[in-house]
């Protein structure tokens, strides 16, 4: 059989996989928690709007958050019960910040809502997209990008190749492996739906060669399907990175800032394909996912977990051992330490690792960079991480950008091999956030400048308007005093209100006006001087003061 070999990609690493512990047992359906905490924001894009009120009864699968605009995805009640709170709670994010959640107290019935029949084959493409958005289908590889945005039904010539990502290259994580072993047929039905929706002619399933059972299951399930090929790739992190996988399967390199669809390729995680099939064939929205529970637990395995299940309960079911200092969400290469154990499992939760000091080799102390270039040898983005490190460290962000810091996918290969144990990725994250911040500052400064210019223009306009008003008033006054006899032979010979207009014919009238004003000022200042400062009375006769009062 002439099987595709793959094109490979530069760099990558081959760390210990730590996968065998969690692949011995089949997927277990996690028990339903008494209280489920469903964050509204579980997708890239807008935060969904809540559709339920506190106290309301919800059925399993009922929409509780509606997509906010098109770049968003709905969220659903994972089981039936009552909404007990709509509040801010800590969510699984490295920042530890709180986010709006819907808290549901399960009634134990686990009663599904009445299914809405939807014939995706007959529906217009846009309706299918909207359906998937409202079914909450997002990328389950970890990025949680709304899936409906990745298909362009109707634009059939856009995509040639559909890629299913079953590489699962990161150590510890085995959720896709188990899903492929146990539910290969559903995944491939989802793939054929996706192929139809995207107009793809061929479907390539990329799986690393350390998953022989998954490869066999997928090959068996795909045996009768035209245009579907399971491609076995060498086990090398980060084969599962979308761009690396596309490169490995098609030889196409999608540059930073471009979309794979520009090259006729679209890529979905196998879990996402499974969710698409569930949504369109069974009317089941995305309310659960497979989660690997690994590390210091008595029964490391994969669970099918309702979204919203507190991490603590899942770990308890797996038998978390004493001495766990923190729990990582995601793998050890790109995951992060959870801010607490009360946070819920979300659509992005592919793996939980109970971390004890002995689990992973301790990272030795950081030493100076010796420019050995080991980082550049493993960089799958073909960067020179050592140069980026020097520039990020020296706050030379322009240089860092020039050397491609935004092409960095933060896979961590460089930091993994660094013999000086430099936390390189932290430096790149720092450079990126500084650049973003300075771009925000620049945008803010531009806005401020625009605001300043607008203010100046307004002041200018108001000034000229006021001048026009004064001129009109003067003309009116002039008419009023033209009858007054000439009594202006005072000490003030130079008119200090020369801006009142060019000297007109009736100088006398003007002088009369000035004299009146001066008299008013004198009277006022004389009154003040008596009260405050008798010695300064002479100053009241200075002509400059009249100018002051008229300005």
């Amino acid at each position, binding site marked *: 059989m002439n099987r595709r070999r793959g094109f490979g990609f530069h760099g990558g*690493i081959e760390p210990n996989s730590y996968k065998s512990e969690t692949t011995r047992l089949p997927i277990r359906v996690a028990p339903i928690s008494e209280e489920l905490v469903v964050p509204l924001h579980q997708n890239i894009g807008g935060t969904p709007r809540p559709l339920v009120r506190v106290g309301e009864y919800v059925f399993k699968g009922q929409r509780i958050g509606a997509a906010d605009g098109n770049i968003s995805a709905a969220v659903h009640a994972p089981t039936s019960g009552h909404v007990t709170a709509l509040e801010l709670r800590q969510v699984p994010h490295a920042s530890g910040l709180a986010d709006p959640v819907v808290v549901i107290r399960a009634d134990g019935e686990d009663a599904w809502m009445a299914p809405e029949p939807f014939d995706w084959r007959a529906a217009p493409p846009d309706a299918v997209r909207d359906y998937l958005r409202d079914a909450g289908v997002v990328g389950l590889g970890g990025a949680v990008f709304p899936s409906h945005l990745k298909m362009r039904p109707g634009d059939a010539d856009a995509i040639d190749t559909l890629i299913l990502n079953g590489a699962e290259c990161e150590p510890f994580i085995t959720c896709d492996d188990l899903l492929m072993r146990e539910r290969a047929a559903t995944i491939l039905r989802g793939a054929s739906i996706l192929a139809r929706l995207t107009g793809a002619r061929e479907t390539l399933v990329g799986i690393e060669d350390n998953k022989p059972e998954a490869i066999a299951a997928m090959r068996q399930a795909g045996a009768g399907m035209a245009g579907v090929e399971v491609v076995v790739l060498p086990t090398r992190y980060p084969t599962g990175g979308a761009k690396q996988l596309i490169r490995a399967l098609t030889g196409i390199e999608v*540059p930073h800032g471009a979309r794979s669809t*520009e*090259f006729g390729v679209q890529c979905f995680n196998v879990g996402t394909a499974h969710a698409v099939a569930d949504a369109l064939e069974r009317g089941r929205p995305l309310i659960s996912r497979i989660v690997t529970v690994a590390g210091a637990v008595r029964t490391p395995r994969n669970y099918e977990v309702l979204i919203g299940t507190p991490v603590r309960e899942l770990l308890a079911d797996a038998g978390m051992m004493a001495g766990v200092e923190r729990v990582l969400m995601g793998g050890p290469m790109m995951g992060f330490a959870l801010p607490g154990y009360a946070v819920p499992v979300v659509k992005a939760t592919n793996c939980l690792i109970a971390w004890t000091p002995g689990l992973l080799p301790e990272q*030795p102390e950081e030493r100076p960079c010796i*420019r*050995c270039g080991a980082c*550049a040898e493993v960089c799958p983005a073909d960067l*020179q991480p050592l140069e980026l490190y020097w520039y990020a460290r020296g706050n030379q962000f322009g240089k860092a950008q020039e050397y491609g810091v935004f092409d960095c996918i933060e896979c961590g290969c460089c930091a993994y091999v660094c013999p000086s144990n430099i936390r390189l990725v*932290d430096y790149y994250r720092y450079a990126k956030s500084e650049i973003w911040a300075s771009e925000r500052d620049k945008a803010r400064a531009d806005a401020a400048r625009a605001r300043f210019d607008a203010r100046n223009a307004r002041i200018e306009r108001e000034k000229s308007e006021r001048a026009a008003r004064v001129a009109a008033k003067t003309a009116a006054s002039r008419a009023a005093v033209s009858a007054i006899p000439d009594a202006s032979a005072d000490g003030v010979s130079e008119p200090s209100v020369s801006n009142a207009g060019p000297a007109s014919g009736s100088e006398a009238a003007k002088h009369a006006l000035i004299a009146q004003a001066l008299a008013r000022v004198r009277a006022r200042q004389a009154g003040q001087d008596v009260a405050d400062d008798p010695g300064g009375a002479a100053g009241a006769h200075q002509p400059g003061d009249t100018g002051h009062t008229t300005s």
Partner: protein
Amino acid sequence: MSGAPYLHRARSVPVIMLWVLAALLPGIVVHAGFFGPGILMQLVVSSLAALVAESAVLALRGQRLAPALSDGSALVTAFLLALCLPPLSPWWLTALGSVFAIVVAKHLYGGLGQNPFNPAMAAYAMLIVAFPALMSQWPLAGEGHQVAGFGESWRLVFGGERALDGITGATPLDALRTGMRGLPGAAPPQISTVMAGSGLGVIAGVGWEWVAAAYALGGLLLVALRVISWHVPTTFLVVLALISALFWMVDPASHAPPWFHVVAGGSMLGAFFVATDPVSGASTPRGKCLFAAGIAVLTYLIRVFGAFPDGIAFATLIMNLCVPIIDRTTQPPIFGHKQGPARRGLRQGDR
């Protein structure tokens, strides 16, 4: 706890430095076998001086001693310097060079990772300029020559004795260079007669060629372990062979054959251990090739036309100066920014 990754490979800087030291061992053993135990004394003197200098500078700079002393980089510098010096040099010469390497060439530029010049080569260059006579007294190996034993070596290195006639002389490279200069008024010398008289051994000097082979063995081990990349030694040796072959083919009467140059003097030590220094060398793959090629060409030119018997040190220092521009101009293309399959044009309404 800092950000991901939380997984790390075990090979750290001290491990790399230990591998480099281990890879030097075959060369050291063969060296001691042919030229006597003097080299071992030089290694000890050089290492002690380097560690003392490193500690002193770290203390002056207010840095912790343990991490820097344990990284092994000072020992690698000390070993490389000692292996370049005549093994029966007085101890203070070695110590002076070692201190210069650590204090001036390494720490004055900011310490490990910051030095633009290879510290061992900078120290070697300083010594050969300041003490040219001492630096050319190499022991002779082979029949008819007496190898200094432990006691004699000890007296020469530490006792201040300078009775070297009969046990030291010019290296093959040095003999070749002075021989080819000829005598005024005499017929131009022929390479064959000059080389016949310089204890040439099979390829490049009795003893020397075996030391070179042992260095190559250790260097290949480092390549196999991926401690050093293949780019530098391969390019260096190939370019050195090519340029010496070019001169030799044009005028075989007055130029040594390429195999002589590739094996002679510090070629193997330079190829595998000096030009591969990551700190002072180029970092990109193409840059490494350019850097090594530059050292090879300069080494040959200095050997044949220059005033010094071997050119590795000066060639390395000159190319060290070129590293920033080499690195800048040889950055490899970033993923997705190379020539690849044609990208489809953006359609109307794609974004």
